[in-house]
């Protein structure tokens, strides 16, 4: 239907001392479910509350407390699965992942290892117009977040904040289909965009709302194709997992560093250890998190406090029916229906609020390309200057459409339109009325323009002579006429008249 066609990007190649190497990357994105209450308790999920104020007896793991599934969190995860065109499992189950840490009061995290709620799906990761990577999603499972340990408040003591304890997370696990640092960042960008369209995650990376674990391995050219053919991981290198990344820039830097580290090891005849690593942005390097002796054995087993989660197909269908238009479809529609370039369509659909704004403008103004130019260049540019979001835009879609309509009807020139935009932006008002009140209308009356041209020619005989010898100098007369008319004369009409009067 409205799908755009694209081709796959070339994998990133890194030249080692002996060979060229390719990267193979898989990602686990931890996305906080947008919900009022936590996954298994009624406590609030509000960010930025006083430490330990959003904590129920369940979250604090008081004796005898039991988890009860928050249905809305499940609905959000199902919605996410549907948005990623994924299999929804009508029966799933929760397991306990056991480990000790002070910000994990139960001593286990309730997660879904054996039977996740969402199965295989896919996501198209756009790189540039016409180029995109299809990344397969392996699964999405629902789990509890941990709290926060604070080690730098006191020299002798550590503190724990349980506000985040028990907040619902979706862990979105990709297949190792990402082939370079830029693709990895683009994958996170795209996933965040889809989640925000769906309203299932706020995607605020600074707040830890969206975090990624990145699995990196290297292989010789050709090996990845063998893996894709057979799905046999034996063709790929040993992977390392870089934990807890919350910045696109650091993701790219960490992958770059990690790839080079692995290449150096392998080319020196060594073996990469499968391990968990942390990226240190200050030093720009990854470090092993724990030695093998300290490796956790999580002793996963089915959580006996919760029965298997059974959901009905009808419920899933209802959620599917309520799904909004997603970025890929919206972008394709913008290209096909409004005649936009894929680039402009991408910019306009990056955030659903931007796309909605644009659609209102284009619906009222009726010119796709012109509307896109004005939204992207003038409006976004101006908002950026003021560090504003579209939600705070002083210019409404109706006002912007009004300006565009005035341009289209030749009532104002492009230059005047920019002045008009600035007036509407800073003072408000109906564009048409402003043009009327302030006499900003373009002069298309050839009689009036002719008079101005005649006056200027008469007053400047020397210039006339020069221009007649060198027609390029006619521009000087055009400029003088525009000046005399306060910029309101139709430039095309002025050009024609000047040329005719000078006999050029």
């Amino acid at each position, binding site marked *: 239907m409205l799908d755009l066609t694209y081709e796959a990007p070339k994998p990133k190649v890194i030249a080692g001392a002996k060979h060229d190497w390719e990267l193979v990357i898989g990602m686990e994105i931890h996305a906080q479910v947008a919900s009022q209450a936590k996954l298994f308790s009624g406590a609030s999920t509000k960010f930025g509350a006083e430490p330990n104020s959003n904590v129920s007896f369940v979250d*604090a793991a008081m*004796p005898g407390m039991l988890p009860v599934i928050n249905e809305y969190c499940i609905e959000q995860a199902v919605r996410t699965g549907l948005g990623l065109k994924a299999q929804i499992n009508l029966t799933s189950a929760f397991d306990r992942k056991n480990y*000790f840490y*002070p910000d994990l009061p139960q*001593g286990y995290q309730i997660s879904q290892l054996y039977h996740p709620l969402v199965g295989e799906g896919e996501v198209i990761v756009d790189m540039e117009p016409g180029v995109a990577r299809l990344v397969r999603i392996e699964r999405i499972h629902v789990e509890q977040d941990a709290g926060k340990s604070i080690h730098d408040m006191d020299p002798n003591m550590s503190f*724990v904040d349980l506000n985040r304890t028990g907040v619902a997370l979706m862990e979105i696990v990709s297949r190792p289909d990402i082939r370079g640092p830029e693709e990895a960042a683009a994958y996170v960008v795209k996933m965040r965009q889809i989640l925000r369209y769906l309203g299932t995650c706020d995607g605020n990376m600074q707040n830890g709302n969206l975090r990624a674990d990145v699995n990196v391995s290297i292989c010789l050219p050709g090996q990845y194709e063998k893996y894709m053919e057979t799905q046999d991981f034996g063709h790929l290198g040993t992977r390392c997992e870089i934990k807890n990344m919350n910045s696109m820039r650091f993701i790219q830097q960490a992958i770059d560093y990690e790839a080079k580290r692995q290449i150096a090891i392998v080319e020196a005849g060594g073996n990469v250890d499968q391990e968990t690593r942390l990226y240190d942005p200050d030093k720009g390097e990854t470090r092993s998190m724990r030695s093998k002796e300290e490796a956790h054995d999580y*002793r996963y087993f089915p959580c006996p406090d919760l029965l298997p989660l059974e959901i009905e197909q009808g419920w899933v269908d209802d959620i599917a029916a309520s799904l909004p238009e997603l970025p890929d479809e919206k972008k394709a529609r913008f290209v096909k229906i409004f005649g936009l370039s894929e680039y402009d369509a991408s910019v306009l659909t990056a955030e659903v609020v931007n796309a909605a704004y644009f659609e209102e403008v284009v619906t009222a103004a009726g010119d796709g390309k012109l509307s896109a130019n004005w939204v992207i260049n003038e409006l976004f540019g101006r908002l950026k200057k003021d560090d504003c979001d579209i939600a705070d835009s002083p210019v409404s879609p109706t006002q912007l459409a009004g300006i565009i309509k005035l341009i289209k009807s030749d009532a104002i020139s492009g230059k005047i339109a920019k002045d008009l935009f600035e007036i509407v932006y800073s003072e408000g008002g109906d564009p048409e009325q402003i043009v009327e009140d302030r006499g900003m209308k373009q002069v298309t009356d050839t009689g009036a323009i002719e008079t101005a041209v005649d006056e200027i020619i008469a007053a400047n005989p020397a210039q006339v002579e020069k221009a007649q010898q060198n027609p390029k100098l006619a521009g000087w007369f055009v400029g003088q006429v525009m000046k005399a008319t306060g910029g309101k004369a139709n430039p095309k009409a002025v050009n024609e008249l000047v040329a005719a009067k000078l006999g050029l």
Partner: protein
Amino acid sequence: MTDLTKLKIAEARDALRKGDVTSAELTEACLSAIDKADALNAFVHKTPEIAREQAAAADARIKAGDAPALCGIPLGIKDLFCTKGVASQAASAILDGFKPEYESTVTSQLFDAGAVMLGKLNMDEFAMGSSNETSTYGNVINPWRRGNDDAALTPGGSSGGSASAVAADLCLGATGTDTGGSIRQPAAFTGITGIKPTYGRCSRWGIVAFASSLDQAGPMAKDVRDAAIMLQAMCGHDPKDSTSADLPVPDFEAMLTGDIKGKTIGIPREYHMDGMPAEIDALWAEGRKMLQDAGAKLVDISLPHTKYALPAYYVIAPAEASSNLARYDGVRYGHRAKLSHGDGITEMYEKTRAEGFGEEVKRRVMIGTYVLSAGFYDAYYNRARKVRTLIKKDFEDVFAQGVDAILTPATPSAAFGLGEMTEADPVQMYLNDVFTVTVNLAGLPGIAVPTGVDKQGLPLGLQLIGRPWEEGDLLNCAYALEQAAGFVAKPAKWW
């Protein structure tokens, strides 16, 4: 009335309604009996102030004509139940000083029904034990003794305090919990009645968890009728417990007709254990005859996977316990070890848990950790889960063949002496649960009823196992057995 504490719940209820006695009088009688019975070590936290307050409120309700079944009835509460503002430690040092800010669903339902709480009852630490010898408060003593021998006997476990208190008439009834037999075995050891309902009948919310997929609360009472009255108030759907069943609760007491004519009672051949005392065999035979004389039809049945139940139980229960007890880490409540300079979080965990947990709890946490660990999970935990499914199917098959209830011994012996088993292999102790754990693994209701005494005068009990959710029929069957057995023996008071 001479001794109010000897009243049964049904008798006390009728007397209260008639105005023959007040809850305040009943409560004072119990409080006084409890104070004189410290030798039994049944009550570990006495709550006379709460009891008197609740009794006064109950008397007012009775006077106003608004008297639910348990109104004004003094009960003891197992320490495993969280009771608001009252120490609730699961008889463990690791919960030292813990007083919850919340009330368990079961106790709150009992109090809503007008029950009076006399205090908290001793038990095995975290309900792990079959002799009540693992409590941080020390052993509970069985009020029963062998003939003229004054050696202290176990009341069984883990609900040993509940059993001892009811048998010694310190309270009219008590709450218990049963993960592998912790209500039924102590009931049998002390000559009282205890029922573990179907898994999901009673909310587990607010009960300190031992093994979540097996734990169930239930009443321990002086007879079947009292058990029915208490169970009625204790069970029902609770949205705070996802495993609690959303099913109506029938009037159990009204179902006690004693008529079991035409009922089919299954006698499982696998419950004839090698080396079982002749007295237990004889007791079982007598029970069969009693039910047959009452009009029931006996059939031999087979529950072929019975022999795997105990090993499966001692994998599943410790596995869940190892995870459930991870929260006792010294961070938020309960005991925290004194730390040395330079100690970090790992030392805090290790020292706190080493000091706070007793030997049996540590043993089970270690077993549970082991059976869940990488490389052993399939061989132990997963296999045990499969066995559990097979055991459940054994029961489903015989119920499908028309069996209404199953009669078995409750325990392989009468109460044994305190300390007798402590030097033995722990597996010897675990064998106490051999007749009861299958019921927990299958999630079925089971009841222990005293039906006789051994040659030393100690009580012995039989167990009836019912169909899921049919506690009413099971209680009626137990009632018929109780009527036929006519067990009236009481321990001679020595304390």
